[in-house]
């Protein structure tokens, strides 16, 4: 029951709308308005540098982009990055959650330290991983050399590994938080009775653990996938999309088209394709999560 229902006065109704008005106005002004404008622009050929008036070209931008091998390669590249990063984060996050499900002294402090990367600025992460991965004085390169016995130029030889590694470092704790919350929500008596019934590890996981943590796992994957798709800051500062275009994920490609080549119409069209993919993915995930 809401407060309104008990009082029902007109004054209250006006008051409640007044409270949300500034928020709605601001969001409309800075999100809806630009989006509509950008959608319009995506049907034009427009280059800021040439300074000519935009020319209406219909769906040509979309047509050209979707037929460009280059763009498809970026889709695959972005997909690979998201897939590997999110899967590894899920596995590590699961492992960490199982570890921290145990009670031991210093557990809270350990959790705090492990989750520290979550709040560190992506820009600082990206720039500093440049130093860690540096071929001559980077400490990660040094470790890699100790292990493999030969000098490895991680950033130029395995740039994809570098960006995935960085993402895994920063975001595995995020998965861990979700899964740990799921594990802690399992009713204690169910774990105990499964212990008494001497269920096998697999059965216990399948019928006691999994049903409880499943919605949280789905949400964690949803959040992580969306965020990994949009990743810009860390990759931009670590590799800048390079060497060449080896790590140029979609968001960096859009940035380059828009602000380095200034092909604005094309960039907005690609941005909208990007947006559609994200909306579709969100819907698929939500449907999967809701099915149970």
């Amino acid at each position, binding site marked *: 029951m*809401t*407060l*309104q229902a*008990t009082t029902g006065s007109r004054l209250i*109704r006006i*008051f*409640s*709308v007044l*409270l*949300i008005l500034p*928020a*709605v106005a*601001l*969001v409309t*002004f*800075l999100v809806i308005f*630009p989006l509509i*404008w950008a959608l319009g622009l995506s049907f034009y050929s427009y280059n800021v540098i040439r300074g000519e008036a935009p020319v209406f070209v219909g769906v040509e931008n979309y047509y050209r982009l979707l037929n460009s091998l280059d763009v498809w390669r970026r889709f695959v590249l972005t997909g690979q990055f998201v897939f590997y990063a999110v899967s590894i984060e899920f596995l590590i996050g699961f492992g960490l959650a199982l570890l921290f499900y*145990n009670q*031991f002294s*210093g*557990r809270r402090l*350990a959790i705090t*330290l492990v*989750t*520290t*990367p*979550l*709040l*560190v*600025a*992506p*820009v*600082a992460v990206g*720039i*500093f*991983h*440049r*130093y*860690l991965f540096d071929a001559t*004085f980077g*400490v990660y390169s*040094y470790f890699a050399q100790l292990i493999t016995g030969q000098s490895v130029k991680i950033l130029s030889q395995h740039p994809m590994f570098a960006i995935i590694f960085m993402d895994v*470092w920063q975001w595995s*704790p995020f998965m861990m*938080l979700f899964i740990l*919350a799921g594990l802690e929500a399992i009713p204690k008596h169910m774990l105990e009775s499964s212990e008494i019934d001497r269920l096998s590890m697999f059965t216990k996981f399948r019928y006691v653990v999994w049903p409880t943590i499943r919605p*949280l796992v789905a949400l964690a994957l949803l*959040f992580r996938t969306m965020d990994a798709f*949009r990743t810009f*800051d860390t990759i*931009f*500062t670590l590799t800048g999309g390079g060497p060449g275009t080896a790590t140029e994920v979609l968001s960096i490609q*859009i940035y380059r088209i*828009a*602000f380095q080549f200034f092909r604005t119409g094309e960039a907005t069209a690609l*941005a909208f394709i*990007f*947006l559609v993919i*994200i909306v579709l993915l969100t819907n698929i995930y939500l449907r999967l999560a809701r099915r149970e």
Partner: protein
Amino acid sequence: MANSRNNRRGRRKIVRTVLIYISAIIAVIFFIFPIYWLVATSLKTRAQAFSTPPLFVWEPTFRNFIDIFLKRQTEIEAITGQELELATGAETFFYNSFVVTFSSIAIATVIGVLAAYSFSRYKPAGTNTLMFFILSTRMLPAIVVAIPIYFFYRSLGLYNTYIGLILLYTMFNLPFAVWMMKSFFDEVPRDIEQAALVDGSNPVKVFYKIALPQVLVGLGATIGFLIINVWNEFLFALLLTERATRTVPVMIAGTRGEVGINWGLIAAIETLYILPALVLIFVLQRFLLRGMTFGTVRGAK
């Protein structure tokens, strides 16, 4: 018999405990190492930062931190080229970051708390639609809105102004403030407010005398996350600022192209820059999951 079984069980327990501690230590080292190395590098001289193999033991120096703010290039040095490192100008960028963060959070908090309260208590028509709409802005890739906003700002004269950035950050943080605060308001029982309203109290007074004091902890947590959000934002700061209004992340990212940069100095700037995050992780720990999911997942206690 029973004794030996007890023994075996006891030994298994010890092995288990040892394994847990070893794994926990490995996990902590893996996740904290880059941050440790960042702070360590900030305490190294230029030569030490460039040593191969990397130095694990050295005599720490605080020179980099002094250099960030105090080093000035004199004219003679500029001509003779003896001291080629320019003053970083970091104080301006830190000041800018501070101004932008503080102002946008102040506005976003006020507007967000009001809206959250209304959504939680009065549920005006269309609440669910509006809440979902506000949430959906989180899924929006920044780069998609960046292009139109860049041109708007250019033509409206908001480019390279504090107001422009503040307005933008306020908007970006509103969805977070609204959802997070709504989740806190939803937890507080509303009987007292209801009684007060029935008794004919002024709804404005009911809000700030009864409802607000009950969510102060939540308000603090929300502000903590807002600080991180704004302080860390990069793309829009990169696109919409020039030297006068540039924030710290843009400055740090700008060191990317330089050859032979002084990593000790950069590390010192980065250390100062991530300091709020290192403090807030302890304060916000209890609300971490909630903050990262817009208050939609409550998490464990």
